[in-house]
């Protein structure tokens, strides 16, 4: 159904300066506006960089667990660009492996939270009633705990492993997703176009799925760019506490834990994973800020 718009796209995009009379796909206009924001571009670059690192890095850097007893706590060198840790393992390889773990934890926990939270929020906001009230008190209950405290509790119950960390982070994230989606649904369900769809005989599911949900994608995109770095930080924190990824597997949190003991001898050991955590979360936050501004409907035109 978008064919007509897509066909019109290239000719309009070829002449971005002129007032384009042809309909331009909305995502293309959004992208163009995003690219005009320096900070958002910087954020996107950081995110893409770490994504690349996570995807192809491990293929290049070699083993992240091979011990090297001849070069413990070595500084940066040609063979080990970021040096080695207390067991002689290559820090760059471990940072790269950690990127994979971090992004996986952030993205998958956020995706899980959305998959569970969005339908719940839609149904709660659309039908209201006692089920909505019960659900809202439940979210209040979870939200009354700080995010990390709740995740730590969940992870402690589930046992330490990357899978359980992801589940714990997702569960901790669900209530805020439900709240946001419910709130947006309450606003959108009273819009004229929703009423019009009902008047055209649309079923409840169709109204929620086609009329309400697509009109909150902006909110959800922004929510995701906040939830992903929160998940990354959460994974690092849980792994740091020993509730997450278990050594010898690398994770930025695990690396920080072991670096802690050698802070005076080799402070760089803590700096690299710390910087990696800071940069990825910064990247997502900048990108999210930019997207929030660009997707704001009041910014149209």
């Amino acid at each position, binding site marked *: *159904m*978008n*064919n*007509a*718009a897509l066909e*019109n796209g290239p000719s309009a995009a070829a002449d971005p300066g002129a007032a384009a009379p042809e*309909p331009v796909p*909305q995502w293309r206009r959004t992208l163009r506006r995003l690219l005009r924001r320096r900070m958002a571009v910087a954020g996107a670059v950081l995110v893409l960089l770490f994504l690349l690192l996570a995807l192809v890095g491990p293929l290049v850097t070699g083993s992240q667990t091979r011990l090297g007893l001849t070069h413990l706590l070595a500084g940066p060198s040609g063979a080990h660009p970021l040096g080695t840790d207390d067991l002689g393992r290559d820090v760059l390889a471990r940072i790269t492996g950690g990127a994979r773990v971090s992004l996986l934890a952030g993205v998958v926990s956020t995706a899980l939270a959305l998959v569970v939270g969005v339908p719940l929020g839609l149904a709660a906001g659309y039908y209201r009633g006692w089920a909505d009230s019960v659900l809202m008190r439940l979210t209040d209950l979870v939200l009354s705990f700080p995010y990390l405290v709740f995740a730590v509790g969940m992870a402690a119950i589930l046992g330490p492993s990357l899978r359980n960390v992801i589940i714990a982070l997702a569960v901790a994230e669900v209530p805020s997703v439900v709240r946001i989606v419910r709130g947006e649904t309450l606003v959108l369900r009273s*819009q*004229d*176009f929703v*009423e*019009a*769809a*009902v*008047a*055209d*005989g*649309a*079923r409840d599911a*169709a109204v929620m799925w*086609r*009329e309400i949900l*697509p*009109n909150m*994608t902006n909110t959800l995109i922004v929510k995701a760019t906040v939830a992903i770095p929160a998940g990354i930080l959460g994974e690092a924190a849980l792994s740091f506490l020993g509730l997450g990824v278990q050594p010898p597997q690398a994770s930025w949190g695990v690396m920080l834990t072991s670096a802690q003991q050698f802070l005076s001898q080799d402070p760089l050991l803590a700096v690299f994973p710390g910087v990696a955590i800071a940069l990825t979360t910064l990247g997502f936050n900048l990108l999210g800020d930019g997207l929030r501004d660009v997707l704001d409907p009041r910014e*149209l035109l």
Partner: protein
Amino acid sequence: MTLLEVSGLRVTYRTEDGPVLAAKDVSFSLGRGEILALVGESGCGKTATAMAIPRLLDDTRATIGGSVLLDGVELTALSERRMRDVRGKDISVVFQEPMTSLNPAFTVGRQIGEVLRQHTGLTRRQVRERVVELLDLVGVPDARRRAGSYPHELSGGMRQRVMIATAVACDPKVLIADEPTTALDVTIQAGVLDVIRDLREQLGTAVILITHDLGVVAEVADRVVVMYSGRHVEHSPTAAVFDRPQHPYTIGLLDALPARAALRGGRRRLTEIPGLVPSPATDPDACQFAPRCPRATAECTAARPALTGADGGDGHLVACYHPGPRRDA
């Protein structure tokens, strides 16, 4: 031939201050291809009456009484599931606000197609062709390309045409148009009214037109129901309402029209109806218009006047003890 028969329709809203009767014993019928106008001031119950027909009122807050027969089927007794099949297929609605009645997330072609997919077994390709046909029908130029436009790329008049295209997509028997031209420029209004009239000619769609604009009524309606405070006070063929208005309220509405006032001697000042619409919460056994009526007598506040035939036959009904044409004082 009667298509839609509304009898004794009552709409009650539950509010914190108790029940509010938005429509009281409204009865009218609609024939195939007929355009019926529901006229009255804001809050007189025209929208409540019209929205009760396809049962679009929030049923947690409004109750509907009386009977609505569409082609012999009692709509008030249908299950919600069956009712959904009626909506958009047999009865569809065009809302007042074209600017906000389209989903901003999808192209207009897709939104029109949605109704077709829902109610017909057309294939994807057939749907696409039909959408273009429909846009052509309602006078959207360059329909094939416009089908790929998003609502914000269209003007108000174009959007209202799209809304109408959506409404008539499945060839409904009844089209309910709730103030379809109120939000539009005067020049665009005429175009939209033409579309509605054409649809009646081409598809035989019966139309219930809700409006407070008597100019619109004169232009397109066959018959008029004048409503006041939830009741219909006058009901007649359009020409009769303008030539021989019977109810003092109708006469008041006509006198408030600039063109009419000019005809009556070029007086500068328009005549307004004194007072305000009474609260619909009250339903005394009296003429609700009596407090604002120049002809009111003791009789008017003693008992409610029934809707009876007025002079001239031709189905002209009026609910008044002192009906009759204007008596200039």
